[in-house]
């Protein structure tokens, strides 16, 4: 057991039976859309820029991150709401999203993603001329 898992430790049985991927945190998100794109905000406290992993594979956007928990040696967990140090969540994007132009920021444990729509697909205002 390394120092990262000390506070998040569970039963020894869990470790045997459950594969690594089951014990992940699902970051809570807000997602909203405006005319030029979609914004996604995800709560990922404890994650630094270096430990954040964002991927777009075809149309699946996956967000992964590991918490940087500075646990002193010999620490014993007495109470834990958070029982794992890994965040993971993914979303399926739609075709009009320009995955090449996604912008990401991470500030105080909040990830913000801006996924623009392809320029040619952005709604255009059609002027109606009245003669």
């Amino acid at each position, binding site marked *: 057991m390394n120092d990262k898992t*000390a*506070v*998040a430790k*569970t*039963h020894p049985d*869990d470790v045997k*039976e*459950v*594969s690594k*991927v*089951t*014990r*992940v945190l*699902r970051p*809570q*998100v*807000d*997602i*909203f*859309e*405006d005319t030029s794109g979609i*914004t996604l*905000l995800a*709560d*990922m*406290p*404890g*994650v*630094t820029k270096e430990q954040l992993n964002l991927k777009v594979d075809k149309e*699946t956007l996956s967000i992964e991150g590991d*918490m*940087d*928990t*500075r*646990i*002193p*040696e*010999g*620490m*014993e*967990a*007495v*109470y*834990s*709401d*958070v029982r794992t140090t890994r965040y*993971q*969540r*993914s*979303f*399926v994007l739609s075709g009009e999203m320009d995955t090449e132009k996604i912008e990401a920021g991470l*500030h*105080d*444990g*909040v990830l913000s993603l801006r996924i623009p729509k392809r320029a040619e697909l952005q709604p255009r205002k059609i002027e109606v001329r009245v003669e």
Partner: protein
Amino acid sequence: MFDSLINPEGSLFNDFRRMQLEMDELIANGRWPSSIRAVAQGTFPPINVGTTPDRVDVFVFVPGIDSSSLDISIQRNLLTIAGVRRLITEEGANYYRNERFDGEFRRVITLPEDVDQEHVEADYTNGVLHVVIQRREVARPKQIPVN
């Protein structure tokens, strides 16, 4: 809603399995009785508490707040953490998910009896508030050498 069905890594059955394990942990094993001040699962913000012989560490997972809005106080062995998180709502945007916590929060944590309320430090990095409370010298285990 259906991403757990589409994404094999977070498959539906894994979620059920995890839930089952958590239920087992709560009911069957009940290794420690729950604290009188315990709150329901999913309360914001989540907290982890760890101890060593000389200090108690409290980790509060409060992303995206202004650290000056935090109000941390300690009375004997009761640590209270209160604050507010105000989310900016985009006017005219179409919301699909709105899961993140917005508003005021307060959590009270019972610390071990021997904490020293004069020696408390707190810092806020990457959305985690880390409070370190030293324990009183007398309470630490002492090695007794055999002559």
